[in-house]
């Protein structure tokens, strides 16, 4: 009836078919193993709400494009935080670290008149150095990361104030930097990017599939792989279609179309870090230390070094977040990276499905969670409520989005897995 197949060292297993695979998928869903599904559902619900309430504006091409620029800082900080959270640590200073790095860039550009290709790397290096210091304090001195990064949160706020000489703000004029989080690709490049991206994804998926089949290991049925590729292609191409529509407010004055430049930047980092976490030894060790640090230590993994490295990655990603927010605001001020940026970023990672206790999370979670947060922000401001009510609503909507997730996952607990 069922076809079994011998694989890996002779353990016999059932060879999955598209039907059995689909059946298993739904059994898993019913069993509560949901991945990003709930966060995606939450996102859909939000889009539905705001789309109904403010259909002409929220669903406009212009607003869609804006979402990417608006989310850049949070998404980058959240992607970095995923690494720190994977170890069960926290980085409260990531927000202000992004501000400090942004300020370093702005000062080099404006005050010192250096070109962008000096200023941007300098900001990134600043991020790396910050991460190194935090990581060493946590890993080598053993101070809880909450305390270290709380101290850094205060310290960086001071550094930012000092860099900005007590409260000035520094504007930047460099067109390259400003384009990063304001500019768009040409329509041709937008399509090119979509096609190359989807092509790359398809190639990676198919190669992996072929690799397993040729080694006689259990592989997903080809149909499932194809469906997944088709899904990604559909998403990418329809997004590109919308983004290449004319969206200028005043078409007489200017034309505005094409994928925001920040989109490929996000995608590149998403791909790199996903690869690092899923396909390299380093990534494996990050999960291991987060899952059971003692087991990792016994397996000979250099736990301290891993611990330091995640802080480096986090602050590095924060530096890019800082560069992008300075680009968007064309300026840096003592509050860049302050306010709710940090809480929102951690929230993004957690809503996406990253555990605060370590061992569970993916970089894509940060992107999806970031999307949830930004859609709420964006939609709420379109509603034009007054401050008090807006805060309350934002809280409620966030809660609603999270409950979709929680209720979906609750089945998991009930069935005991």
């Amino acid at each position: 009836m069922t076809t079994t197949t011998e694989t890996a060292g002779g353990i016999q297993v059932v060879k999955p078919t598209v039907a059995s695979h689909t059946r298993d998928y739904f059994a898993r869903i019913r069993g509560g193993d949901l991945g990003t599904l709930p966060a995606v559902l939450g996102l859909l619900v939000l889009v539905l709400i705001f789309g109904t309430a403010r259909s002409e504006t929220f669903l406009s091409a212009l607003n869609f494009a804006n979402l990417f620029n608006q989310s850049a800082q949070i998404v980058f900080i959240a992607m970095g935080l995923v690494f720190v959270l994977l170890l069960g640590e926290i980085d409260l200073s990531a927000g202000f670290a992004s501000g400090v790095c942004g300020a370093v860039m702005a000062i080099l550009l404006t005050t010192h008149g250096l070109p962008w290709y000096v200023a941007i790397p300098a900001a990134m290096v600043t991020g790396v150095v910050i991460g190194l210091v935090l990581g060493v304090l946590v890993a080598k001195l053993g101070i809880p990361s909450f305390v270290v990064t709380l101290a850094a949160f205060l310290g960086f706020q001071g550094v930012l104030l000092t860099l900005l000489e007590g409260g000035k703000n520094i504007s930047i004029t460099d067109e390259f930097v400003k384009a990063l989080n304001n500019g768009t690709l040409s329509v041709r490049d937008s399509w090119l990017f979509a096609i190359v991206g989807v092509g790359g994804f398809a190639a990676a998926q198919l190669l992996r599939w072929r690799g397993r089949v040729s080694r006689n290991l259990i592989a997903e049925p080809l149909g499932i792989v194809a469906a997944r590729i088709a899904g990604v292609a559909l998403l990418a191409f329809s997004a590109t279609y919308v983004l290449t529509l004319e969206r200028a407010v005043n078409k007489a004055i200017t034309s505005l179309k094409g994928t925001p430049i920040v989109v490929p930047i996000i995608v590149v980092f998403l791909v790199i870090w996903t690869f690092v976490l899923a396909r390299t030894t380093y990534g494996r060790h990050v999960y291991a230390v987060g899952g059971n640090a003692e087991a990792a230590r016994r397996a000979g993994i250099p736990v301290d070094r891993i611990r330091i490295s995640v802080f480096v990655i986090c602050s590095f990603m924060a530096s890019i977040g800082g560069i992008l927010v300075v680009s968007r605001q064309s300026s840096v001020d003592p509050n860049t990276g302050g306010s709710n940026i940090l809480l929102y970023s951690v929230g993004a990672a957690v809503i996406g499905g990253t555990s605060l206790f370590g061992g569970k999370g993916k970089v894509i979670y940060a992107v999806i969670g970031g999307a949830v947060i930004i859609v709420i922000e964006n939609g709420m401001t379109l509603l034009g409520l007054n401050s008090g009510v807006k805060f309350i609503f934002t809280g409620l909507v966030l809660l609603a989005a999270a409950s979709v997730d929680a209720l979906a996952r609750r089945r998991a607990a009930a069935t005991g897995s």
Partner: protein
Amino acid sequence: ACGTDDGGDTGTDTGTKSSAGKVGVILPDTKSSARWATADFKYLTEAFKAAGVEADIQNAEGDKTRFTTIADGMIASGVKVLVIVNLDSGTGKAVLEKAKTAGIATIDYDRLTLGGGANYYVSFDNTEVGKLQGQGLVDCLTEKKATKPVVSYLNGSPTDNNATLFKQGYDSVLKPKFDAGEYVKGPDQDVPDWDNAQGGTIFEQQLTSNKNIAGVLAANDGLGNAAIQVLKKNKLNGKVPVTGQDATVQGLQNILAGDQCMTVYKAIKKEADAAAELAIALAKQETPSTATKTVVDPESKAEVKSVLLTPQSITAANVKDVVTDGFVTKEELCTADFAEACTKAGI
């Protein structure tokens, strides 16, 4: 208690559709001062409503990211005029540029965006505010016949450009006195976020480290009140003059009680009306005639057409002006505790 007052209502899209396009207004925060949520919001809403112009008025809650996001949303929803109170010149400038490329007219409200190039500017003179504070303190100290008084500074948020301007103003009055040895300069500290609780602790420490403080230049009424509470604990209230700003109910009551020396009243209704008038004209694509003055943008050196209003110094003697102006009502000000003082002040 929740506002059934104008300020507390939801849905701020006012007015019916008219020939005029929609106007967007972005206010900065609610923390630095009560004015944004209680006064500016109210008066602007009323002014637009009266003119039948649709307006979308939002507050960025001190968050620059949100400030930009709100601007994006307003531009996307097709406003014809954008009125902003920047959180800082940098973000302000980015927003103004974006609006300009979208063909939207712009007005700087209360705070000038340096290098921003808005079409118009409506404000009080912030350095002038500081000068009034400085002068008010000098008057109170003179009245108390203080000799060589130690004056401490409780400045506003280091991240607020207005705070810098206020300080320039009061420094211009007080520094000569310090230099001349008439006054002694005491502790000088900023209060992050204009946070009143923190302001209280900072002042308590100032007093602990310098017991002779005889005058407090507090940058606004909230901080002034924080200082007054510490003084009260030490039974020094009324003996050590404290300044303020914004003519809040709390500040005026402190003045009536004799604990606060003065506050600065900015007739926000006038400011709001002026801004609304300008915006409405622009939304109707008319050329406004009210902006008769000009201000030179110190960064771009460009001249910005402006409406500049003058702030007024308020002491116990003229508290009633604020009530007469309708900025605060007699009911909110003259509660049981202050009824007597009100009568004395002629309210």
